[in-house]
């Protein structure tokens, strides 16, 4: 969490960040957006795969079926490097995939990717070096 926020700060993108602590909270968040006309849909959802209570895939599936947020951009951020996970999340409608690196400098590159996603046309495969 700390590193993601730092990476966004470093990239100098102006964002309001909402944080859900687990899969269940994330699902509840999308339901609340759907039910409250004052709450806007997030421009970008940064999603891990391995989440407590509800898996990232289930959260994504739920979001894509929601009234207001079905079209939001989704960037998957995960420690998993398995091809299966990448393929599964792409199929569910992820717009990008970032594998969490174990070096600080590498991690900071996430900010650039978030910037590109928000400004440019959606990239299907945004990757980090392996």
């Amino acid at each position, binding site marked *: 969490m700390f*590193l993601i926020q730092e990476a966004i700060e470093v990239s100098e993108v102006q964002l309001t960040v909402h944080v859900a602590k687990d899969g269940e909270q994330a699902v509840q968040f999308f339901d609340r957006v759907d039910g409250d006309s004052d709450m806007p849909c997030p421009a970008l959802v940064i999603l891990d795969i*391995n989440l407590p209570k509800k898996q990232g895939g289930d959260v994504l599936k739920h979001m894509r079926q929601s009234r207001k947020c079905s079209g939001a951009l989704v960037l998957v951020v995960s*420690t*998993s*490097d*398995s091809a299966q996970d990448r393929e599964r999340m792409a199929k569910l409608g992820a717009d990008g995939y970032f594998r*969490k*690196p*174990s*070096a*600080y400098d590498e*991690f900071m590159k996430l900010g650039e990717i978030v910037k590109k996603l928000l400004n440019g046309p959606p990239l299907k495969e945004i990757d980090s070096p392996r």
Partner: protein
Amino acid sequence: MTRNHAKALAALSAGANLPQIVFAEIMETLPAAMYMTDAQGRLTYFNRAAAKLSGRTPEIGTDRWCVTWKLFLPDGTPLPHDQCPMAVALKGGDVPTGIEYIAERPDGTRFWFTPYPAVLRDAEGQIIGGVNLLIDITDRKNAKLQIDEQFRAIIETTPECVKIVARDGTLLFMNPPGLAMVGASCADTVTDKNIYNVIAPEDRERFREFNETICGGKKGSLQFEIVGLNGERHHMETHAAPLRLTDGTTVHLAVTHDVTERKRAERASLLLNAIVDSSEDAIISKDLDGVITSWNKSAERLFGYTAGEALGKTVADLLIPEDRQDEEPNILARLRNGERVDHFETVRRRKDGSLIDISLTISPVKNLEGVIIGASKIARDITESKRIQARLLESEARFRQLADTMPQIVWTARPDGRVDYYNERWYEFTGFSRVAFEESNPESILHPDDIEETRRSWYTAVRSGEPYNVEHRFRDRRENRWRWFVGRAIPVRDAANNVVKWFGTCTDIDEQKRVEDQLRRANRDLEQFAFSASHDLQEPLRSVKIYSELLAKRHSDKLDSDALTFLTFLRNGATRMETLVCDLLSYTQATTFDGPDELVDAREVLKTTLENLRGAIEDSSAEITADPLPSLPVARTHLQQLFQNLIGNAIKYRSPERPPAIHLRAERQNEYWIFSVTDNGIGIDPEYKEKIFGLFKRLHSSDEYSGTGIGLAICQRIVDRYQGRIWVESELGRGSTFRFTLPL
């Protein structure tokens, strides 16, 4: 002698005044039979010729009307004497002349004659008597018949063909039976009126020569075949003689008969004789008293008696042992009733006294009128089949004994799939009755879910003749639970490859099955655990690494040199742990991917591998070469992992004395490829040849060589997945060759 002449004679005797003695003298010398009667027809006189012709001595004054014994009309009907021409004339009737009659003598001989009766009258015209002259015409009659009526009758009523043929083959005459034989309605319809046209082509020349011979004046006979106008072939036998015509030419007169039937019968009889003689079975015929009337070669062979010794003897005396003498009267009684005796197995005695087992089939023989006159008897030697049967029983007993000692359920089935035997284990397991075989219904103890599949497998096997192999559950009545069995059966075939029997077993695999299941479950759990663990382990490791880095980066001014060194240890440990987790993850995933259906080009995989290893290759100045590599049906990632691990190891464990030289090769052997990776590195102590493929097995500390001890375990796991093998051949200090097999 005429009628006028007779009248004159009558006039002479009555009217002319000739002395009686002279008259009598004349009458006696007459060569014709003559007699005289009074007006009532009573015999008054007869001459010697009359007595001779009639064959009797007529009685004067007693015989009336005629001197003959018996009279007949020409058609053979008897004629009473008082209606004979003489009687008719005396009674004033008109007598027609020239009528022929037949008379019979007392000795039974007959003769033909023509009577010439005349009436004698006195001066007033009163009938005073009669005179009759009998002219014998027998010779003439016979002669005429011989030439004419009789001959015609003969040639027309004979069933033989009678024909007259000219020297050039022209058919001059043929009787109706002959025409019927050649299929013609009259002689004119025979083609060109020429006899040669109906002779079978192969016999035509012979017949022409024969015709020439006959017309040349010689007698002869010939057998030949004809092809009738209707296309039918007949076999003919002809007897011919030359016939001289009034114009001086000689023609061929022949009586020919159809011997086709006789020939056929001869052939059939020859065939029958041949069959009887060549039969393996003894064929004997006997009359109803049991006397032997025929005896073939096999009978000689079987019983030892020659035909000469056997014919005329009774079966009872010759062949039947003392203790079976009651059989023959029984058999003869049944034959007299017209019954057949089929496959009667008994014992007979040979000439040398030895006994043989035979099977008898006896049928009554009837004559043309349908009366039973004897029997034909076929005797077959069954000593051999008895012996085989005994041996069969013995081998079956042995088989059962063996089957009963086996720990499995053993059964046999007929070619149609019906089970006809179970061993002791079956009865022990099922508790079914050993006596009531129909109680043994396998389906009654089969798990309901397995009935359909088991039935289908068995029917398929029986239909195709392929071995049967199926796993199913049987109810174990003793433990009151289901047990797994594998049912297997193979067909036993005869020389003609027909299935004659099925030999089957049911083997208890319950324990094995349970262990397998447990093992599978344990493996699956372990994989699942390893996968989740390595996933979940990565996240905290990453945190340790990244925050220790941040600590060193942002707070180094607050840390002393000891703390910084510890931080480095912390990061190195985390890095090693990360590699370990990563490798463990690929190990668990090594078999979870399904291989692709298309072929993978090993050369391309090698290219990618070398690309990935570029850093290590450049650092070590390794030289890597390869023979041509094939395409094969495996997952690309699997082949890549194999190459990467083996080549990576070859570089890692290089000799400090020389730059690494690594060579790849693939050879085809039977149903698979053998890949080899040969290096010139440090080599492996033979003691550890097997051990190195185990998980986390390392021969060196991580200070000497980095690594997790998972690479070769991954290789082992991948080749296992393809039912392949991996092994190493090595010499310490010289290098190693790793080999692995993959499917074609």
